[in-house]
């Protein structure tokens, strides 16, 4: 079967939204438009938003809709070129020098080069989807290092020269906004801020993602989670926590717990901070009752 072409899938924002829904990801009009533009303009897509709103899931869904492999680069403090671009296999180089004796060898040969995610993506014969996850966790220097890659889809290896992409990758960057990103990075990307979905969309996401959850349960969970998120919690629940809550409550209900009690007993999968739990506990009964309404 022929692989779908990015341009044939992304004919319009509506088509992108439709294809994403096929990959079990519900995108609103704004996100679908941003994905459509990123694909058609050939630019990286920068997704920012609170933890748990579905940024990484969006990247996975894009890879799925395009039928491409996803290469993930998880960022962290201290990540550098050796972790993201390439590294020389020094042990093998040393052994090769020793074995070569008087003969001349090229220690910068391909067999000594360890390709890290960015180089893997560039050298792949087919288009890949690259996810640079949580770029805000990396240092400013790493952000600067990415600029060449993001603007021209190429990297320079001093010993080998410049390597250009054989098939231009689709790049998605995510950020939880724990720090501000450089303007230079932002302007190279198509940008989208993902907020928490409204109750209706969240209910639809729960229906799509959860295993065996009734529509009324999904709606009740979505309504209760919206109510819980407006409170000043240390860790507001994300969408995946809402899905888990709906699943857990359904299992408990099938095991014999009546509805409000099933929700209250399953709260541990929604709120994962002890202080948040004690803050929400006195009001939880009322929130659930109203949501079940």
């Amino acid at each position, binding site marked *: 079967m022929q692989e779908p072409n990015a341009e044939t899938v992304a004919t319009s924002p509506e088509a992108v939204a439709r294809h994403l829904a096929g990959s079990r990801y519900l995108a609103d009009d704004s996100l679908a438009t*941003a994905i459509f*533009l990123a694909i058609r303009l050939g630019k990286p897509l920068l997704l920012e938003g609170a933890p748990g709103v579905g940024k990484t899931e969006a990247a996975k869904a894009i890879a799925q809709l395009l039928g491409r492999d996803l290469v993930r680069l998880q960022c962290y403090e201290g990540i550098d070129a050796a972790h993201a671009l390439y590294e020389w296999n020094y042990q093998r*180089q040393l052994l090769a020098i020793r074995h070569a004796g008087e003969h001349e060898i090229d*220690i910068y040969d391909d067999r000594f080069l360890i390709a890290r995610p960015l180089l893997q993506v560039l050298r792949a014969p087919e288009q890949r989807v690259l996810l640079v996850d949580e770029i805000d966790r990396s240092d400013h220097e790493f952000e600067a290092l990415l600029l060449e890659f993001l603007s021209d889809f190429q990297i320079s290896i001093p010993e080998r020269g410049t390597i250009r992409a054989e098939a231009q990758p689709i790049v998605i960057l995510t950020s939880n906004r724990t720090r501000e990103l450089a303007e230079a990075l932002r302007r190279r990307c*198509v940008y989208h801020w993902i907020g928490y979905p409204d109750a209706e969309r969240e209910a639809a996401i729960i229906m799509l993602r959860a295993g065996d959850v009734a529509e009324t349960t999904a709606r009740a969970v979505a309504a209760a989670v919206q109510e819980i998120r407006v409170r000043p*919690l240390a860790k507001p629940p994300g969408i995946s926590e809402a899905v888990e809550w709906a699943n857990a409550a359904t299992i408990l209900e099938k095991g014999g717990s009546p509805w409000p009690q099933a929700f209250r007993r399953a709260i541990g999968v929604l709120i994962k901070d002890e202080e948040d739990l004690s803050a929400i506990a006195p009001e939880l009964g009322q929130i659930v009752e109203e949501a079940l309404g």
Partner: protein
Amino acid sequence: MMRQGTLPLASAPFLDFARLLRRHAFAVAPEQVCSFMQAVTLLGPRSMADIREAALATLAPPPDRRGEFEAHFRDHFHGDGQPSVEGEEDEETRIKDDGGTREKESETMRQEKGGELSSAIEQLSSRDFLRDDDGLGPFRRKLASALPARRSFRTVRTHSRGKLDLRRSLREIVSADGDIPSPQLRRRQTVARKLLILIDVSGSMKLHTADYLKLGHAAVQGADRAEIFTFGTRLTRITSALRIRDRDQALARAAALVDDWDGGTRMGPTLLAFLSVPRFSAFARGAAVIILSDALERGDHADLETAMRRLSARAFRLSLATPLAGDPRFLPTTAALRAILPDLDDLIDGSSLGSLTDFVLSLARPAPAASAIWKRVS
């Protein structure tokens, strides 16, 4: 001479919009304007909504200026009149902070000894700062090296006590034609911890807020990573304003951002609002956190206690500098202070710039916990 190409007439509104944004200090690069017009073409456009989506995706306004961006868009493309752009709050803060409605309901019922000077009523006003020499130059210069340090995951070259750096060692070997010179070593780098200063701008702190803002400006200028917030009845991040090198300009810009000068205090709820925004609470993680406030929380201090406990769990060191401690007879006897004392690493005199700068410069040195010191005093 090469004849300059002319752009189609239809592109004029888009170019004008980019110019308008630049006039209002939005960073819009020429390549973004090209992408904007390409995006509009790709989307049809079928409606104004398409143009708006194209503008948001390609011109990438920062989330905290999104409201301002939208106002300019409406003004330019819909002709809605002059947009209001002053003192915009961070979107996330607005969602989490209830604006003091809970406190207003119970205001009349609450009384507490020591809280007479404080109020939770919101009073919005503006503030001007006088030009003077702050004498904070030495503080600025010493700050970066005086802050507590931690080991980073980044490494630096070292001559002893490090791990073998194979990359550099191999380069040496190759350049020495296979001879093995002394090995190159690397060690994990030490970096200064973040500095987070939360400044109380309520009425009871009126005499000190000007000095505190000067300290905040010096901290942003001197430290690698410093974040400054103000709180009274609201929470406002003023770090970006204080990044301007000229102190008077920076303070004037910060003054315009803060709406709740000299009003009431809702210390507990505003600190909880700070903690509930992941982006903000990340500033506190592993940081030296200094709260400049008299901590006179009127009424119930449960929120303040919760907030301080959470801050203390996140921070490397949590300090409260109160001007009341400038009085030699001061004791932490109010219920709020007694409740938060176990969570504090330091409870110090915040009545003068001199004592504050000395304290900030001593943050790297260990000190007994605040509760131990004040138990001895009382």
